[in-house]
């Protein structure tokens, strides 16, 4: 369909506009972007007021990834208006479309695509209104700064054109033709809109909410998930200054006070006043492999291609990843208020709509009685304590109606009780054919759940501690191609004979859920480490070995670019240093990321330091290049920290890593000298998202570089000093 016909048809539909406007029969074949299909009204996404204010609504949330800025750029270009003219409203159950979770690097793919499509149709609709108003053909109009301008100079501004329900239209599948004139926002590194407040102490976080008459609460958690409360003498706590209420419901124990530090002190007193039976309920194993392999699993074959091939040289290896933490710098926080049977919850949850459903079940009220408003929290790298603390706050608002109740977790709560990244085992066996190619590939990944998000009240930590506890629903794995524990378990290489099996373990020893990249972190670590092992066995350069097995030209491009920028060919190995390479396409359908890494290994101290990194990324059409770089740089550093240092420790009774001393992360002194991120822009290609693309490749590239530096093949994460020294 040509643009002109499309516009005429759109006009015809617009002419019949009413509030109950039905989907016209002529709408083009094709599908709306997923989020827009769910919420198809254009004015659910973009509203224009008579005073020229333009408000954009997204169901996604700012997590520190810069999504606000990128979404504004997308809409600004479709409307040919400066981003500064737009106001953005993010996830709020009372105001915005329901776009589920802000997760999976999907925000640009979901909300970016929906907003681009909706904004294009808004522009077309406005163009037709302007044409009618000015009495000239729509095609003759220029569009500038929020107004259509006719050849004779007469103009109609957006605010003049929208006087009522003009934008209350259903989106149609046919995308609007490109707007006239050059794009001015997309592809440019527009500075993040949220950073000026963050560097100047402006209110930016849910932790900064200071509502009138607000009270403070702290929750006293059990010593472990199996612990039972055997006695409590709260009388002395009740008498402490500022204490308003002590709440006990089963083993959910909390105190509400006037004044935040008084709540902190009262919670400490309450913890001393509680007697717990803490059974030795956690299984203790010599290592991660023994722990994971001891759990019952449900195997699913996710790839069965070709036949078994025996001819060639056989290799096998096992890789492991321990439980790891999101460990945001700011502990989880929420504010909740119950007024006239209606709850308002200010939360940094990744999914305000699913959270509302879970809270409704927890509080035994209808969803309509709860409004969840997203307010930024400290960095979010997956399912952390955000939903749990929102449930804490809602329960305490119920116990103390009227005034807003603010709850913030303490550091030991965050480290001890957030849902952990899952411990995993990956077993891989391969046959290297006489031609130096992989003739056969067998991969088995064993993993507890990577998604136990709400949904259900039983997914909320405090709900499991109540006198009448909610039981967590039995987790299920997400299907391929995205997968969960099996995310990226299928190699993105040409392998004629391959079998991949996901051994899903519904029950985890410790509560686990989504952490940046899910299974991709460990699966890419395993696959890309093994690719390095096979390349060396085949006596082929690891980059050349990958290229030999890659088909997708976009994958080949990032591999070649990362290698070239690093100076892979002609690399001269300094003493104690070595280089490693890795590649993955996130989820096998999103961003392409390749990395070359140099490390320095001090065998005597066991210290591994990443010295420099060159990475290359293709995330489709780039909206904000610096935003992509920031995400990839951050992903590389965070993954390096997981990979070199991080491991949850526990004994038979409880989790032991409850602060930054027992669970260290990388500090400035351990940072590389240089991290480059090189971008390949693909204008016109779908947005692929970048938030999680670097996690897996960074881990493998570091491990491969350690081998190159000193001949140690590290297959168990983390590659910490003790292991390097011992090896």
């Amino acid at each position, binding site marked *: 369909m040509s643009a002109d016909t499309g516009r005429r048809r759109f006009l015809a539909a617009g002419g019949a506009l009413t509030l109950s406007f039905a989907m016209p029969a002529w709408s083009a074949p094709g599908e709306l972007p997923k989020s827009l299909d769910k919420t198809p009204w254009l004015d659910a996404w973009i509203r224009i007021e008579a005073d020229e204010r333009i408000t954009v609504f997204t169901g996604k949330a700012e997590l520190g990834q810069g999504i606000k800025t990128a979404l504004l750029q997308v809409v600004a270009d479709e409307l040919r208006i400066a981003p500064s003219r737009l106001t953005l409203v993010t996830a709020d159950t009372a105001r915005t479309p329901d776009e589920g979770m802000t997760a999976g690097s999907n925000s640009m793919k979901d909300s970016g695509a929906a907003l681009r499509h909706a904004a294009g149709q808004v522009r077309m609709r406005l163009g037709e209104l302007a044409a009618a108003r000015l009495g000239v053909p729509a095609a003759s109009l220029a569009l500038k700064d929020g107004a259509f301008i006719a050849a004779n100079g007469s103009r109609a501004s957006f605010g003049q054109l929208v006087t009522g329900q003009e934008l209350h239209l259903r989106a149609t599948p046919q995308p609007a033709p490109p707007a006239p004139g050059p794009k001015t926002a997309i592809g440019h590194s527009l500075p993040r809109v949220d950073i000026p407040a963050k*560097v100047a102490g402006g209110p*930016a976080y849910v932790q900064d909410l200071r509502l009138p008459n607000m009270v403070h609460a702290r929750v006293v958690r059990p010593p472990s998930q199996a612990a039972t409360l055997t006695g409590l003498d709260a009388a002395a706590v009740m008498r402490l*200054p500022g204490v308003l209420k002590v709440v006990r419901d089963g083993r959910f124990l909390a105190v509400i006070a006037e004044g935040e530090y008084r709540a902190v002190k009262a919670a400490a007193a309450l913890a001393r006043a509680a007697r717990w039976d803490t059974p030795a309920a956690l299984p203790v194993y010599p290592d991660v492999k023994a722990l994971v392999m001891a759990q019952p699993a449900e195997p699913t074959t996710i790839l069965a291609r070709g036949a078994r091939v025996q001819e060639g040289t056989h290799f096998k290896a096992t890789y492991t990843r321990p439980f790891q933490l999101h460990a945001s*710098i700011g502990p989880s926080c929420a504010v909740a208020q119950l007024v006239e049977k209606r709850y308002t919850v200010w939360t940094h949850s990744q999914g305000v709509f699913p959270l509302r459903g879970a809270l409704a079940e927890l509080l035994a009220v209808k969803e309509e009685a709860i409004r969840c408003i997203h307010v930024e929290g*400290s960095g979010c790298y997956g399912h952390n304590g955000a939903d749990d603390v929102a449930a804490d706050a809602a329960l305490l608002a119920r116990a103390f109606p009227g005034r807003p109740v603010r709850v913030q977790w303490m550091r030991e709560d965050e480290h001890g009780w957030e849902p952990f990244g899952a411990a995993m085992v990956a077993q891989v066996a391969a046959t290297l054919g006489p031609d130096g190619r992989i003739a056969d590939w067998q991969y088995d990944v064993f993993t507890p759940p990577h998604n136990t998000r709400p949904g259900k009240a039983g997914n909320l930590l405090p709900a499991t501690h109540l006198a009448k506890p909610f039981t967590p629903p039995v987790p299920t794995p997400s299907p391929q191609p995205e997968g969960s524990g099996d995310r990226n378990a299928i190699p993105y290489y040409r392998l004629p004979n391959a079998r991949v099996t996901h051994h899903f373990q519904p029950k985890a020893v410790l509560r686990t859920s989504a952490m940046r990249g899910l299974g991709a972190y460990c699966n890419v670590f395993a696959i890309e480490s093994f690719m390095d092992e096979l390349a060396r066995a085949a006596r082929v350069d690891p980059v050349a070995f990958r290229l030999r097995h890659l088909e997708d030209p976009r994958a080949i491009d990032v591999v070649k670019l990362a290698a070239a920028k690093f100076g892979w060919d002609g690399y001269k190995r300094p003493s104690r240093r070595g280089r490693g390479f890795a590649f993955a396409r996130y989820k096998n359908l999103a961003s392409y990321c390749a990395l070359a890494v140099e490390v320095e290994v001090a065998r005597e101290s066991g210290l591994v330091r990443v010295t420099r990194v060159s990475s290359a990324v293709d995330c489709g059409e780039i909206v904000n290049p610096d935003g992509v770089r920031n995400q990839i740089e951050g992903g590389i550093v965070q993954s390096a920290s997981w990979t070199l240092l991080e491991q949850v420790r526990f004994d038979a009774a409880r989790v032991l890593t409850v602060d*930054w001393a027992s669970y260290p992360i990388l500090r400035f002194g351990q940072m590389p000298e240089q991290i480059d991120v090189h971008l390949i822009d693909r204008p016109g290609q779908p947005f692929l998202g970048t938030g999680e693309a670097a996690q897996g490749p960074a881990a493998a590239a570091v491990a491969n570089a350690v081998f190159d530096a000193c001949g140690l093949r590290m297959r168990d994460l983390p590659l910490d000093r003790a292991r390097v020294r011992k090896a």
Partner: protein
Amino acid sequence: MTTYRLQVNGKPHAVNTDPDTPLLYVLRDDLALNGAKFGCGLGQCGSCTVIMDGKPVMSCLVPVSAVGARAVRTVEGLGSSDKPGVLQQAFIDEQAAQCGYCIAGMIMQATALLEKTPAPTDAQIRAHMSPNLCRCGTHMRILRAVRRAADRLAAGGKR
């Protein structure tokens, strides 16, 4: 409760609170200053860093009764989002934040460095910033922002 007279960002304040209340809670809850953040309460992460008499301190560890007459400075004292100070502007220029929760503490830690060592080496910047944790992995940008501010000040920029 006791009344404490504090000098914060050059202005006198009187707060009525318990003597053991950490300065962090007084800044946030009594003076409504958002910059210093609660991160750990253990002096391990630096997100509550403020400057007391020219030295960076973790305000989660300092009881309000121990502050006395010492001048306290927070990130709010360096400038505003409309009129940022040199370090704040350098963090904006380098887009040196992801979630940004640690950033006010980073800027105060860096302020203390540049006041004492106006022309730091890169190694000095790294060593000085090491008490402060960032979880988003924004470290390389933070280091660049501190370098940029130092260079700007060396070129005669106003602090």
